[in-house]
């Protein structure tokens, strides 16, 4: 990581600690913000948070490793979580899973080399009557079929290219 990136992260974490306070109960909201912006919670980030909240970094690690929406490993910009619990299983999640693997060229638990997509299993997403269901970041997709997988992935890529073109415009200005 470049020193400037580190500085940026230190600033971010300090500003979140200001928002949520530096009591222990602020720990999870701060970690959720780090996860969202940096797609992972690195050792460096954990140490920063521990220092600000005056707790041992192992305490922070214990929390990060406990919750399935927090991760030490780098995640892609889009985390695809396919529900594997019974109702979605009966509705045909296996075929969807296979197509996701085929289209992305990775297995469940992996991230694409361009760090765009992470593929994960999820336990019951609470969309059981509309299975197979999956989340792409915060967005829910229901009654997913292998045919729909390609469109969903393309939708993500389009979103990212919109961000990229916005950035380009900023540079022009």
């Amino acid at each position, binding site marked *: 990581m470049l020193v400037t990136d580190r500085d940026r992260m230190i600033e971010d974490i300090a500003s979140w600690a200001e928002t949520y306070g530096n*009591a*222990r*109960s*602020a*720990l*999870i*909201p701060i*970690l*959720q913000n780090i996860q969202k912006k940096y797609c992972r919670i690195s050792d460096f980030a954990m140490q920063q948070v521990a220092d600000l909240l005056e707790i041992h970094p192992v305490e922070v690690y*214990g*929390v990060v490793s*406990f*919750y*399935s*929406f*927090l991760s030490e490993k780098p995640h892609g910009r889009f985390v695809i979580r396919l529900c*594997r*619990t*019974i*109702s979605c*299983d*009966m509705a045909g999640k296996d075929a969807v899973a296979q197509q996701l693997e085929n289209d992305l060229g990775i297995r469940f638990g992996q991230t694409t080399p361009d760090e765009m997509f992470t593929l994960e299993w*999820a*336990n*019951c*997403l*609470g*969309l*059981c*009557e*509309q*299975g197979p269901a999956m*989340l792409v970041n*915060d*967005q*829910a997709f*229901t009654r997913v079929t292998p045919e729909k997988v390609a469109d969903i992935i393309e939708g993500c890529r389009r979103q990212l290219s919109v961000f990229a073109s916005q950035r380009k415009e900023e540079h022009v200005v």
Partner: protein
Amino acid sequence: MISSTQAPLTFSSVEANAGLKVALGQKRADILETLRRSGVRGRGGAGFPVAVKWNLAAAAQSERKFVVCNADEGEPGTFKDRVLLSDYADLVVEGMTIAARAIGAKKGILYLRAEYTYLVSHIEAVLERRRKESLLGQAVMGQNGFDFDIEIRMGAGAYICGEETALIESLEGNRGEPRNRPPFPVDTGFFGQPTVVNNVETLAWITTIFAKGADWFKGIGTEKSTGPKIFSVSGDCERAGVYELPMGITVEALLKEVGGENAKAVQIGGASGHCIPASEFNRAIAYEDVATGGSIIVFGPERDMLQVAHNFLEFFVDESCGQCTPCREGNAKLLEGVEMLQAGECSSRYLRELCQLGETMQLASKCGLGQSSPNAFLSIVKHFSHEIMSHKRAN
């Protein structure tokens, strides 16, 4: 997409803030008395009487008390709270406000599961509107001295946080590991202060009880399980979705309602519930017979019940918090046993041992997760032994 109700729920006929108005017009003791008369019990699955819980929290001596709405709906097959928060968030918030009044709390927390992040902006908008209408914040409904506001806190993906003490641990910034009980949260909860934790549906019914009266509520259901219940129905049936049906309804009648008459089994209460075979479809869904938080999963004639047990146990191996041995090791052993059955490598003698292990887990686990995780396995072994045994050996 977010909402899917099959028929209008009673909630749609409850006038905005009617329940809150009635409750705030009553003395604390009368609010608790109304709840006691209604007989309402917790809708999350455990079925603890609400009046008892609130009485204990009201009696506890403390300057700081908390009301927590448990929106960490993680039980497989349950999605009613998602629908209620999408369509009737106001009723839930009203219920929290009534609770605050009854126990003397100033702060409420709505603990929403991470999987429902897409609901946050909607709920935030409801809270903001209510603040503007003086239904939250300083002097709620113009009552001097009654200040109450609500904050949304997000879960981070852990089924166990639906257990109330694990939820509180998570709020305090810890791993979601359940605490020993007693002390109970009504006495020693969030930050060690008296806290009531209620399910989303329970809170919506409380508002409805004040709007429509305790007698209306008591007039529905059975003597021990009063009122209507919201069910989440999925699986092999024609009309999956959210249903409002009276407590005490038989499995048979429910199946007719949802178009699942040819089912060979129904899982009632989600992965931690029981698997009911067709021969027992005359049983009643109520606290005194088959209890449920509302999850109904229908299995058609073609379903492989061993695969069902495998799916549930995979879930529990993944979601056990790992704190106590019976749950952490037991679920892994049961899953391994199911895989042995599938491979034709499990002797009858070992299957009996697995069942004993399941019973040990029910007795020795620390919290509800481990105590109930063997239920599905044990009931499938009991009712479908002809189906799960005698699998062909691979070689």
